[in-house]
């Protein structure tokens, strides 16, 4: 079992004729994902590396029943690409693009929210956006939609959700090395205004029979981790391990990610770790111990059972 993505997902790549888009379209196909083609306006009807190219997302939905899109459109056109995917009814939109202006993302968020209100009223499933500025999503052994190195993953039952890309790889690597595989890994991205938040992912993992435990990796800045911790305390039945990057980051400095900034004394690593501990989340003492902390926690739980 998995969340959001499986072997039947029908994937398109927006920006497939760009160098990066094409490279990762091939990477995802090599991993086993069902990449049905891509979109580049003005290049419709062409074929690149065996992928069909369409002029619009709508066309890919009509012709191939695409339901997942991976976006590699450059920053100033990326918000428009997301809006097009929402309009075409794509169920899972994964935006890899880094550096989208925040004001553009505010409009995207507003449009997605309004669209989902309408869909809910009509009894349809809601559309999901992952990212932007994220590594994507992978369900090991089934499909990957993103830029992560597939081979470090193992089929298993740990659900991983993270704001950071390479730090997610670290958690994946650690759990795989210890013999625990992953159900699904979601990189939600480092921007302050984005699609899915921690709580959305935790809710899916909590309801997924294939996910037995969860690793949640946050960063300084914002209050999403505190909100997620409160949600876990109230709702989550599964063991959760947490880590927050940026304990040594100085206030007021943006640490690479637009969202990773401590402002006005809020959003510090310590306040987030405290919130996690208060919610019963086991906090890894260092980023090298995310896997071992989870292993120890699971051992304790099974010993008790």
């Amino acid at each position, binding site marked *: 079992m998995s969340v959001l993505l499986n072997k039947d997902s029908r994937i398109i790549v927006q920006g497939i004729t760009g160098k990066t888009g094409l490279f990762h379209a091939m990477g995802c196909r090599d991993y086993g994902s069902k990449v049905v083609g891509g979109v580049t306006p003005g290049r419709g009807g062409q074929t690149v590396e065996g992928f069909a190219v369409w002029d619009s997302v709508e066309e890919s939905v009509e012709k191939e029943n695409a339901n997942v899109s991976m976006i590699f459109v450059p920053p100033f056109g990326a918000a428009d690409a997301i809006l097009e995917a929402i309009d075409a009814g794509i169920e899972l939109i994964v935006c890899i693009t880094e550096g989208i202006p*925040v004001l553009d993302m505010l409009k995207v968020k507003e449009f997605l929210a309004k669209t989902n209100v309408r869909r809910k009223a009509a009894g349809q499933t809601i559309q999901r956006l992952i990212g932007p500025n994220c590594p994507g999503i992978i369900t090991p052994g089934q499909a990957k939609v993103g830029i992560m190195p597939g081979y470090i993953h193992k089929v298993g039952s740990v659900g991983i959700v993270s704001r950071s890309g*390479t730090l997610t*790889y*670290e958690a994946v690597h650690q759990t795989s090395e210890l013999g625990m595989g992953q159900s699904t890994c979601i990189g939600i991205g480092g921007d302050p205004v984005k699609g899915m938040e921690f709580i959305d992912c935790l809710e899916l993992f909590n309801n997924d029979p294939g996910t037995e435990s969860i690793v949640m990796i946050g*960063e300084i800045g914002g209050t999403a981790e505190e909100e997620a911790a409160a949600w876990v305390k109230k709702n989550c039945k599964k063991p959760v391990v947490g880590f927050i990057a940026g304990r040594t980051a100085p206030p007021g400095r943006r640490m690479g990610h*637009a969202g990773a900034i401590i402002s*006005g004394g809020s959003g510090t690593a310590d306040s987030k770790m405290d919130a996690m501990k208060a919610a019963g989340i086991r906090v890894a003492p260092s980023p090298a111990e995310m896997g071992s902390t989870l292993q120890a926690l699971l051992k304790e739980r099974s010993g008790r059972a």
Partner: protein
Amino acid sequence: MKIHEYQAKELFRNAGVAVPRGIPAFSVKEAVEAAGTLAGQGVQAFVVKAQIHAGGRGKGGGVKIAKTRADVEPLAQKIFGMNLVTHQTGPEGKIVKRLFIEEATPPKREMYLSLILDRDRGCVSLLAAAEGGMEIEELAHSNPEKILTLPIDPTTGWQSYHSRKLTSFLGLSLDPKAAGNLAGQLHAFMDKLYAMFVAKDCSILEINPLAIVGEGDAQKIMALDGKINFDDNALKRHPDVAAMLDPDEEDAAELEAAKWDLNFISLYGNIGCMVNGAGLAMATMDIIKHYGGDPANFLDVGGGATAEKVREAFKIITKDKKVKAIFVNIFGGIMKCDTIAEGVISATKEVGLKVPLVVRLEGTNVAKGREMLEKSGLAIIPATSMADGAQKAVKAMKEGL
């Protein structure tokens, strides 16, 4: 990116937002000329203002009133080149290299106004207070009821009813026939200010004080100060804003890094770090601290770094004299470990290796990368994991080469 007050006011003026007349000056001579030009426009009293990015300039002695045109020169001489210390500059202060000569507009009343990118609400929000001059964070803490917060829906933008709410909150009359029609002025002011905020991709815009100057029907609503931060992601679509960057206000190493598209921030420790990915870079700083060391910098070389980029990153780290050891921590996904190894080898050959270098490689092409480092003949200390690398870096920093 941040800009100076005079640059913010230029943007306000171009957008039709009311500000006092003023001219920037880059020397005392230019300050005198500026006063002459303003005097030609009928200005009688002036304000000489130091232009540095930090707040608290007035308290630090960087803002002075010149009652006559002749007073401008001695005041400009005093402020230009001074080392201005405020609560935001730190004890080392900041040398004043730019002045702003402005017409003196004694405020009848001071208020506070800001627009912020409100990430929690997912919109732009207005914050306002009926009194100006204080720190808004302090007021938010002590008297939150004295602050008006108006979230603006991004699809509707600024509307007249927002202006009416603000006008009433500030205790001004909504009657267009009231003296000076302040309600009408405030609406025009806010409508244009919000449009400018969106058009220029601002992230924070603060006017403290927003003032009412003059008497009776001649009353005017004006921005007497202006502070703007811009969304760095959007700078490339605003070349006019990007050109306002003042290199004197930026860290030299950070500017050099930005040229190569590297995310770099100078810190105070002595272990230089080179990492791919912002989260892993922060986590690497954390683990160095965890094992008793102190990071000298944050450096994210990004996901798609080339050997050239890695070499430049390495040069920036080694230029820093306080660096006593270097820790390279790479989890190659898209970035291949052999690319990193190539960059590290070429950089060390070019600049030499004066401090211990610990390298931890993991991920794509790891075997090849490790082999290249081993065969290079360089005195590189290999690490098997992030924890192992951090411990070795701390140890090497203490022991030296």
